[in-house]
Every structure is written in structure tokens, then in C-alpha cells.
């Protein structure tokens, strides 16, 4: 297995994952979409609603607002000590009280006042309702942890997709420079250089095979790797994509641990953590040793030289 990060921003991550079976990467994709928990507004108490919208519409809109999630403080309410009633351990509250100062005022997520400063809407510009002058909305809302399987509002990713790594080859001896492949390719994989088609952006290819079909002289060959992938994760902003991926792996691992314990007979010892720790420790240890040694020799040159001379003797 080999992973290389291709592109990384606050909300997106693109990486190349090599030597992984497609079933594994697909299961992780399914888990990230449907079974990785995030926070979303689940309960809305409407105290006053003078807007033209029904209470349900406002509640639905609030539910779909992506919230920044904090895993350390909250537990899934069904696992909570309050048994799903809702307490400070499993839910984060919001209040909203707006009165439109003028016609056409738009209440946004910026008007939602969070009780927990760490669980806040991803953006404060998401519109909730347009109000006429003097119309009021007073709301209490509660966010809980949930999974995408139950409702799409709990999905941490807007996109988690992978594709097999494409290989596009042009036989320059066969290519007659008809330029048709450049025109037909909607992903701009080809370019004309010295009257020959040249592959300039292989990674962008979607394996649609249009170029192969249009080439009259059969100069183009498109193939793909079965076990190498380009994985793209696009977060809603609820969590950084790196955290989503790691949390997804956690959820995946827990599934199989549960499966093994549920089966009859002896439970095989699953100790992948130990060899992992050893592997990690081995390259790390010499590094750690080197680091403190270097400053020590600078500051305590005398003691260092003494110990050296002692050893020599």
C-alpha cells in the first residue's frame, strides 16, 4: 500500500492510493458517505414565526445547515446516559431571535447564536428566511450527532469518489495528426505538438474511450490500473477531510472487530496495533535520539567531551 497526497486545501483532499483492492476502497467510501457521524440540527422549537414560511420549512432548512463537528465533547444520543432525551453531553443548542428592520431582510445562519462556540455553522451567510419589515422569528434549535444513513444532513462529505488511475498512450508512428482526438476529448487530455497528438493531462482522463473510437488509425490506447486509485474527498466543512478519512477507517475497523466477537468459537487475537507500533517506533527512535543529542552537545559541550574521553579510556 502506498498513499501520496496530490492536492490539499481546507475542504478538499485528493490522493493517490496504490496497491489497494477495489472492495476495500469502496467500503471506505460507503462508510464515509453513510456511517461517519457529524453534527446537524435535529430538534427545533419554534417560539414565534411571523415569516411567510411554514414552521416545517424553517426547521428543515436549519437541519441542512452544515455544522462544525467536535467529536471530543459529544456522544451519539442513543448511547448517552440520558438515553436519548437530550443533554449537554449529546446535544448542542442554538438560539435565534430576529426582527426584520426593513423589507426584504434575510435571516441567515449568522443570526443563529450557538451555545457551544465550537459547534457553529460552517458559514454565516446561508439564508434561512426572507422577512418583511417587523416580522419576527424566535427559535431554539438542538444539534446532535448522527450518520448519513439516517439523513443526508449528517453526511460529512459532499463528494467522496475514486477512480482507477488511467493510462493513455499515443503511438506517434501511427498518428496522422488529424486532430480529432483533441476535439472529441472533453477533459483536455490531448494537445497537438508538431502535428502529432500528445498526452498532456493523463490524470484527467475518465476512461470514456471516445478518443479510441474516433481515431481512424488506431493510434490511441486507453487502459487503467485495477488496484491503484485517485481518491477525491470534498468535505462539507463539518470536519477537515483528513479527519473524515481517519474516522471512516475507525468505523470500518470497529465493524470487523464486532463481527469477530459475535462469531462462535475462539476469538482470534487481533493485534495489528502492536506490529504497527513496532514499525512506527523503529524509524522514530533513532530520530528522537539524534534530536536531543545535537542540542545537548551544543549547550553542554564539556560534559559531552568528558563522557567521550571516559569511553575512550
Amino acid at each position, binding site marked *: 500500500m502506498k498513499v501520496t497526497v496530490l492536492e*490539499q486545501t481546507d475542504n478538499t483532499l485528493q490522493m493517490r492510493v496504490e496497491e489497494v483492492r477495489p472492495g476495500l476502497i469502496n467500503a471506505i467510501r460507503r462508510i464515509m458517505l453513510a456511517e461517519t457521524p457529524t453534527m446537524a440540527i435535529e430538534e427545533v422549537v419554534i417560539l414565534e414565526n411571523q415569516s411567510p414560511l411554514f414552521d416545517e420549512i424553517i426547521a428543515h432548512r436549519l437541519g441542512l445547515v452544515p455544522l462544525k463537528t467536535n467529536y471530543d465533547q459529544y456522544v451519539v444520543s442513543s448511547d448517552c446516559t440520558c438515553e436519548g432525551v437530550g443533554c449537554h453531553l449529546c446535544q448542542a443548542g442554538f438560539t435565534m431571535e430576529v426582527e426584520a428592520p426593513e423589507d426584504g431582510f434575510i435571516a441567515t445562519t449568522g443570526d443563529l447564536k450557538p451555545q457551544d462556540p465550537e459547534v457553529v455553522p460552517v458559514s454565516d451567510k446561508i439564508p434561512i428566511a426572507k422577512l418583511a419589515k417587523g416580522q419576527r422569528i424566535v427559535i431554539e434549535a438542538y444539534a446532535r450527532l448522527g450518520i448519513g444513513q439516517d439523513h443526508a444532513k449528517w453526511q460529512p462529505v459532499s463528494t467522496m469518489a475514486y477512480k482507477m488511475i488511467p493510462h493513455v498512450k499515443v503511438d506517434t508512428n501511427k498518428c496522422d495528426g488529424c486532430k480529432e482526438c483533441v476535439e472529441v476529448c472533453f477533459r483536455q487530455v490531448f494537445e497537438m505538438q508538431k502535428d502529432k497528438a500528445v498526452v498532456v493531462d493523463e490524470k484527467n482522463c475518465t476512461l470514456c474511450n471516445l478518443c479510441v473510437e474516433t481515431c481512424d488509425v488506431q493510434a490511441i490506447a486507453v487502459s487503467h490500473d485495477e488496484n491503484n486509485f485517485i481518491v477525491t474527498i470534498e468535505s462539507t466543512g463539518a470536519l477537515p477531510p483528513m479527519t473524515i478519512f481517519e474516522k471512516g477507517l475507525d468505523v470500518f*475497523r470497529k465493524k470487523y472487530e464486532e463481527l469477530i466477537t459475535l462469531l462462535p468459537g475462539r476469538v482470534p487475537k487481533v493485534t495489528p496495533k502492536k506490529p504497527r507500533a513496532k514499525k512506527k517506533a523503529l524509524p522514530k527512535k533513532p530520530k528522537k535520539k539524534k534530536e536531543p543529542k545535537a542540542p545537548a552537545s551544543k549547550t553542554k559541550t564539556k560534559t559531552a567531551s568528558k563522557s567521550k574521553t571516559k569511553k575512550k579510556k
Partner: protein
Amino acid sequence: MNINIIKNTSRELELEIEGEGHTLCNPLREILFEDAHLTFAGYSVPHPLTRSARFIVRTDGKVKAINSFKKAAKKLIERTEELRTEFKKALKAA
């Protein structure tokens, strides 16, 4: 997750996994194919709206079917951890 064992002999294991579907079964089946003693591995999701799957594993008899099933699950956990370490390494390098 809940497991109902329908058949458990030395050559064959048939079980119903309640509350799980393709996410759990497909990678397991794929890993089972790597087992040299395996003669058959497959699963089906009887209905897409009920969360349950039926898994069948058959071996040549030299290894108990249930043991190769457990081994596959263990292998998967190890691979996940491998992917995690590689992922962390890649993040550091980037």
C-alpha cells in the same frame, strides 16, 4: 449488528448478518478469495430496504470455514491499519 448462524460445518458456513449490507460483506468476500483452501465465498442482500445480508463460505475441508471467515476479518483490520499508517505518512510528507 446481530448474527444468526444457519449452517456451521467444517466445510461450510452460512450466516445471516443483520444490520449490515454491502459495506461489510464485499471487502470480506474479496479478502476470502485470497485463501488457498477456499472453494466458494459469496453473499447476497435479500432486499435493499431491510438491512441484512446472507453470507456463505465453503472450504476444501482442510480448514474450517468459520476459521477462514474469521481470518479474513482479521486480515481486513490489519489492512485498514496499514492504510491508516500510509495515510498519516503521506500527510506528513505533503
